């Protein structure tokens, strides 16, 4: 069964891009566009990995990570952070439990390779 990736990203074009890239690589996708709905979608879809944008409306990626960590079933859920912010923010996210971070703009299938690495490892 294909792994399911939850993409939490407010930009619709980036959501579509990731959808195309991830499905082309054989993953299933689910989407949330803000921090508030992210948890609900995660409960419903039970993803194997979350690709999380740090800059989100109504509470940023750090808020989403904090909420995930407070729920036992999502405690071990791997998170790959993507961000347009300063790389130091990405490093901070890694310190707070994300597996890795990718700075925008990322090229080609950078995200797909990272997802594959994290899930395969």
């Amino acid at each position: 069964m294909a792994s399911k990736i939850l993409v939490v990203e407010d930009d619709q074009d980036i959501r579509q891009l990731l959808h195309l890239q991830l499905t082309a690589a054989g993953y299933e996708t689910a989407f949330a566009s803000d921090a508030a709905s992210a948890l609900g979608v995660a409960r419903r879809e039970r993803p194997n990995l979350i690709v999380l944008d740090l800059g989100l409306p109504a509470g940023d990626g750090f808020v989403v990570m904090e909420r995930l960590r407070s729920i036992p079933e999502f405690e071990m859920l791997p998170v790959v952070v993507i961000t347009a912010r300063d790389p130091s923010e990405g490093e901070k996210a890694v310190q707070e439990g994300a597996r890795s971070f990718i700075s925008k703009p990322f090229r080609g299938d950078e995200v797909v390779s990272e997802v594959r690495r994290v899930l395969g490892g």
Partner: protein
Amino acid sequence: MARADHHYVRALARCSRRSIAAGIVLLTLTVGGFAAVVVHAQRESRDALEERFKLRGALAARFIDSNLREFARTEVAMAQEKLAAKRISRGAFEDLVDELDLQAAVVLDRRGRLVHVYPRRNDLVGTNAAASYAHLQAAVAGRIGVSDVVTPLAGGQPIVAVAVPFASAGGRRVFSGALGPQATPFEAFLRDAIPLSSGAARLVDSRGMVISSSGRFRRDDSTFLATAPVRTGGWRVELEAAKSQLYAPVSGATMWLPWLLLGGFAIAGLALFYLVLRLLESRTTIANRSREITRLMRVQQNFVAAASHELRTPLTAVVGFLDLLRKGTAGRVTPAQDELLEAADRNAARLVELASDLQVAAQLDAGRLDLHLEPLAVDELVKESAETALPTAREKRIEVEIKTDGPPTVLADRRRALQVVNNLVTNAVKYTPEDGRVEIRAYRRNGTAVIEVADNGIGIPRDEQHRLFDRFFRATPARVGDIPGTGLGLSIAKSIAELHGGSIGFTSEEGRGSTFRLELPLAGVPE
């Protein structure tokens, strides 16, 4: 920020007002103190001159007194010699009067009764002499007596009498002789007492009647008067001098020079004060300007950070979708289409590079560019950079040559060091015309690794060289030649080199080429 500035300026203005007040008080006190000292010194000098003048009067009085006593002693000696008999003969008395060259004379017995008088002139000494004349009474009592002016003669000459007691066979008697001052050297003494040309001197009796005088007295505000008593009798000496003459030693320059100096001092003080104020003022201005510059720099930094941030998400979409298109995700792509897509991709890549440069610039501004230092072989860095630049170099038929003199190892952040060397090498290829030549040299010198990138390209005009590392600055030949670039690369490269404890410098000649020199600290060499 604006509020804080405002407070700062207000505080400085307050400080200036305080220093103005303090300065004025200080200046006033100093000048006032000096003025008091000058006034005091000048007053003291005048007092000293007046004291000297008074002393001269006192000396004249002493001189006159001793002459008077000398005269009295002569009288006594003569009287004791000529009038010693119990009965005094008229002849002997008259001889004595002539011998002493007196105007008149009397002899009294020890009770003050008149024994002889010659010439008999009642108006001169009086018949009941002992009762009416203080000088005769003093002589009867055994002391020398000196009379006030007795009677002016018709010629206007004042007469005074000197009475002395003397011993005779008939007991103590008194001899008193009247004389005109011309008979004594009084006048000469008085003249000697006044060497000042405009001065005057006189000898007066106890009632103030003039016995002898030298010069005329004015007795007004322009003169100074000194009085000294003569010990014998009630006489006194009076000296008068014009103040202009008396104070001559402390007049003229002595008087005005201190005031001139004081005036100069006050003006100098005011000038200094003004300069200090201006200095304070300009300090305020400079502080304001530097704050404004800091503010503008922050605006620029914020802009760079914001621009970098806002470019990222749309660029991600552009680059990503182009990639998907070219992979055929949306259907087969013809070679002609792919050629266009490739051009779009190439330009998107340039934008990605710009966004990345802006991000590094923003990180450098914020002091948040972290270095992950590790030992790196310089020749590998150089080779990797050369390979990056090789496709472009081939297109322009530019020969790229690498010369490494042993492989020095530096302590650097791999990604950042590569970014710096890449920047230098791609610049060299970019700004060198077709069929040109780029030489990359790496060697070790004085504890540093040196990487030189030399080209025979368009070069940098001399008058623009000092601005080459300014952010967004691009030299004229690059702009005129329409060579793409942002003006960010070198400024970032320089900052990164300096962050490593290294440096970047260059030499260049317009139209002939440039040589950039990157120096990085060697690994394992203490700083």
